[in-house]
């Protein structure tokens, strides 16, 4: 389970370039879907990696599912060496994606995002259109099950 507010505030305070995706984004668009982690798409530019490292360091991120006695270094080099990561932290699970299926990288996600104000900060949130694309591309049963709800919301908000 993730404590959403401290995670988002930490990223916003460090001016991290990211787009909220996944279940939290789905919820922000009025879905009743329940998720337990925070997913975001991040810019892989060096400066941004540095900001992510600083923002999330207080929450002691570690790769999810690896034994506790294996060493893990939370630094720019680690983030540079991969694209998509699943972390466990002291405030819950955080998935960081450099590339999102059906969307592309951060710049593509940003084009498909909308601005939302939360806790006094402005966040980029993947739009319903973007979420539908991402869920279709992911194609797993759990992703496809969300589509009717997202499509209904999208249709309801059309002129």
């Amino acid at each position, binding site marked *: *389970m*993730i*404590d*959403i*507010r401290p995670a988002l505030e930490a990223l916003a305070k460090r001016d991290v370039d990211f787009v909220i995706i996944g279940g*939290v984004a789905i*919820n*922000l668009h*009025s*879905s*009743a879907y*329940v*998720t*337990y982690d925070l997913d975001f798409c991040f810019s892989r530019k060096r400066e941004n990696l540095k900001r992510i490292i600083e923002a999330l360091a207080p929450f002691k991120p570690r790769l999810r599912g690896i034994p506790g006695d294996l060493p893990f270094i939370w630094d720019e080099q680690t983030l540079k060496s991969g694209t998509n990561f699943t972390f466990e932290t002291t405030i819950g699970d955080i998935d960081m994606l450099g590339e999102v299926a059906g969307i592309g990288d951060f710049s593509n996600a940003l084009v498909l995002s909308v601005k*939302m*104000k*939360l*806790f006094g900060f402005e966040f980029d*949130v993947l739009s319903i259109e973007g979420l539908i694309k991402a869920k279709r591309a992911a194609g797993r049963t759990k992703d496809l099950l969300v589509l*009717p*709800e997202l*499509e*209904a*919301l*999208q*249709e*309801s*908000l059309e002129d």
Partner: protein
Amino acid sequence: MKEKAIEKLLNPMPGSKIAAAKEFGIDLTLLARKLKLTPEQRLEELQQAMYSFDELRREAEKSRKNDRHQTST
């Protein structure tokens, strides 16, 4: 905009995607209610739901352990 969206969700047009979602089993009244909230309120509700489900899960686990203990004694 919100009022119009809520109206569409509560009275879906036959053949629409909203009608299809209803047919699929989506509770459209829940979506209509969520639309009335601010994004921050929606997150607060999500966080609350996480806590509740987590508590339920822990209670269920405790109960299962107790059952196992009683069966074995």
